[in-house]
């Protein structure tokens, strides 16, 4: 924690002004580009997951509902986008479960906002933006509270037309932690039904690398997310996707994660050892612009 409360407050106000300016500028850009070129697109996703895992770290092992609303506006190869994502814990749960909201509680546990811009090129795109994380849990009940709120800048390169469609995400925490994190993933479709309604099966693999977000063991107030630098987790997944209509897609899958960083490992029972492997299922319904 900062030792100087005045400086800390000023920093917070500066950051808040910066964020507000960024959001306002972005909203204006969305509106202007969208109005000028009529290429505003919206997308809504509704996910249900057996556990909410963020960069390998299980934030809740309870069943969660995760809606997202997003909009973008494009002009030729350039676009801007913004959205809001939330996590609702649907079960009250017990002390043996991880929870972001708090033991015995259910409801909205996290609400995140993001804004970004992208540039599309042949075979993929690059994007960059800003994410604001807001936690609504009760720390006294084991939840994640507002003190863990933070902000990130992100940059992504997504090579959609390349073998295994690799994607790399780079995050820089500019709020609570001031550190970097790298994530990479690849996906391989192994069954694709070509007749409408299309159906496909995919396998994907991802890896998380903590570059500079490890806790300082000498600082008892350090609220960083990981114990160590290095590979935090590796994940394998299988996913089925079916188009219900040109605008609606249903997907379901199962993920298995190998946990390397201590922070990614769940304790088995209240006092048991931490597990090296975790697995969970997820279902998602996406309402999106009609596919080409």
């Amino acid at each position, binding site marked *: 924690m900062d030792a100087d409360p005045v400086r800390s407050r000023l920093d917070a106000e500066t950051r808040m002004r910066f964020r507000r300016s960024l959001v306002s500028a972005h909203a204006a850009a969305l509106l202007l580009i969208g109005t000028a070129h009529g290429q505003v697109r919206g997308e809504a996703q509704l996910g249900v997951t057996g556990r909410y895992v963020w960069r390998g770290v299980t934030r809740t092992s309870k069943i969660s509902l995760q809606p997202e609303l997003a909009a973008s506006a494009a002009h030729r190869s350039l676009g801007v986008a913004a959205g809001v994502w939330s996590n609702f814990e649907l079960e009250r749960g017990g002390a043996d479960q991880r929870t972001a909201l708090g033991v015995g509680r259910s409801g909205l546990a996290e609400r995140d906002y*993001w804004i*970004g811009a*992208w540039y599309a090129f042949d075979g993929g795109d690059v994007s960059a933006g800003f994410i604001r994380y807001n936690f609504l849990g009760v720390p006294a009940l084991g939840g994640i509270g507002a003190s863990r709120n933070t902000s990130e800048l992100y940059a992504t390169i*997504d090579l*959609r037309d390349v073998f295994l469609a690799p994607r790399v995400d780079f995050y820089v925490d500019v709020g609570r932690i001031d550190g970097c994190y790298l994530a990479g993933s690849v996906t391989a479709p192994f069954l694709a*039904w*070509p007749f409408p309604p299309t159906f496909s099966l995919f396998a994907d693999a991802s890896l998380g690398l903590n570059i500079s977000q490890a806790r300082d063991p000498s600082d008892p107030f350090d609220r960083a997310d990981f114990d160590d630098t290095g590979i935090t987790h590796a994940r394998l997944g299988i996913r089925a996707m079916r188009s219900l209509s040109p605008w609606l897609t249903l997907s379901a899958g199962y993920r298995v994660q190998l946990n390397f960083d201590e922070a990614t490992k769940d304790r088995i029972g209240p006092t048991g050892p931490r597990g090296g492997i975790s697995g969970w299922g997820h279902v998602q319904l996406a309402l999106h612009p009609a596919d*080409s």
Partner: protein
Amino acid sequence: MLGAAQLLACQGPEMRLTPALSPDPRPVPSDSLMAGFGRADITPPPGIGLTGNGPEGRKAAGYRLRLYARALVLQEPSGRRLALVVADLPHVSALLHRRVAELLLRDGTGIGTDRLLLSATHTHAGPGHHYEAGAYNASASEVSGYDAVLADSLVHRIARAVRVATEDLRNARMAWGTTHVWGISRVRSLPARERNLPRPAVIGTPPPGLPPALAAIDPRLTLLRVDLWDPAAAEYRPAGAFSVFAVHGTGNATENDLLDADIHGLVERGLERHIDARNHAGQGFRPRAVHLFANGSEGDISPSVPASSRCDLPRLAPHRAVGGPFAERRWGWHRAAPNHVRDCVGAARRATVLVGDSLAAAAIALFDRLAPARGQPLLRRAYTTLDLAERAESLGVCETPFNGTSTAGGAPDARTRVYRWRLFGLFSAGFEEGGTAVNREHDGCHGAKRILLGPGLQSLLVSPDLPGYAQVSVFRVGSVLLVGIPAEVTTEAAQRIERAVLAAAPRNEGIKEARVISLANGFLQYLTTAEEYSAQFYEGGSTLYGPGSAALMARTAGALAARLDESGVTMPGVTIVGHPGDDESIIPRPGRVADSTESDRLEGVECRGDTLLAHWVHGVPGQWLEEARPQIEIREDVSDTLVAWDDHPWVEVRAVGRRGHRVRWEARWVPPRHAGYRVVLPGASDSLARADAVRCGPRISGSAL
């Protein structure tokens, strides 16, 4: 070409199609051969799947050249009739054949299943959804399903064409002739063809320097010219023709979204317009002459079109997500970019017209050379239904029909999106021609075929919905034997069938030639020789009953040819059992048709760039086109000359929306030269039928192409 997998085509309600055999003929009071022509519009409303390209067959948005069923009925003084029908369809199902025959018998035409040779031109821009074999309803285009109303409409319209022909029966003179047409078609599976032993002989004399794939074709264009007695002129006048040439109806690109008669439509119309001009019959919307242009051994024959006329295939890739860092990647099939589609569809259109016009010119030249003479050419038929499902072993074919993995990738004319698919991008799934599509073990009845999905899964999911029967017929029309095969027969397989037929036919009766007509009386996919089958190209993979299939057809056709007499029907009692699937209402069921108080209405005409655009309101969704007149006419403003209408190679008509419960249509046409044009709706009242003339067309003199 049927694509990828005919998976998930689960068995639905059973359909039983009993044979409706012709009664004994009744002698007629004429000592001359009689003939009559008929025609019926079979262009379905938009919404159906354009069939033949598997998953790449698009949903029809409208039409270009209308689709017709054309019929020629021939009658001897003995009363014996033969009906030849060629429909602008991708395939003919056994359902269509048997139901049409049933209607014709009911109408007292004397034409049953044994006297009806119903074949398809094989345009890949026509409707499916009419198969008794459910696998083809499920997988012949991106629009899946059986449509009972569509099937029924086709049956009634095709039967009407034959009825019109029987009502048109007049004293006739006819003559057969053959010419060779080179340079507009090619063997698309040359490595498979070259496996044949002995090496296939070159048919005819190809022009020097012709590439091997173009020189290996069967170049014969065989044509029957028919002149009918004209009571008004008191002379025989040219009335129409029946011709056979082998070429796939794949001039259009797979991304084409319009119903279209393709290459065959141009050849049909080309000769029809020529005959009308010779008869000074004018050049109205619908020609008076009728030209039936049947497809021959087109199994391995593609039109010679440039590579630029084939569109890039849809590819499976993640969509660019609207959502940001939290969004799950959503994958899907991505179509080619609109600019590319416009270019490849345009290139295909130009190539189609070039090939079609070349063939039409050859047909016209041959027609004009022929001199029909008096005489009474013999009309004979022999017909059978092979029960492949029950008698496979004794017939010498495999018990269970299977598609190979090469079927999934499509043929060079129209690859499918899974062509050369690799599991995890590394391991070939066999969706290619030859190579990993070949079963190196050569085990089991299907030998070299690597079975799509494996024999267990395919026999469970797909095989029950594939046809287990084959209707084969041999018609003798004068000096030519026409062999109707319900499959797409390769050049060499057809040569063997034709040799078998000629060897078995009664000798010394003036039989000069035999021609296989593919896609007749049903659909069984492809037919290759055993040697071609061993290569497992697309055609071999799609030969359902294994390497012995072509030999079976040659034996059967030979046996039929040997019985070309009045008792020519053999094994008549086979009932075809199909499983078309549930009725899916592919075309909208009109709640009510537009009544007389709802006149067509021209909404506007404009010129955008070089293109003339017209919008109008006509009919209701699901309503079929009127046969007798066009929807629109385009006239030159000054001369009032009729220059185009909605059955024209360069006029594209699409249903683009609704006006209340009625359909809003759009026509696009690039005029050949810059001038003033007026659009007229013949079906509308005067006040609503016309708009002011617009000036349109390319300012640089050249062409509209």
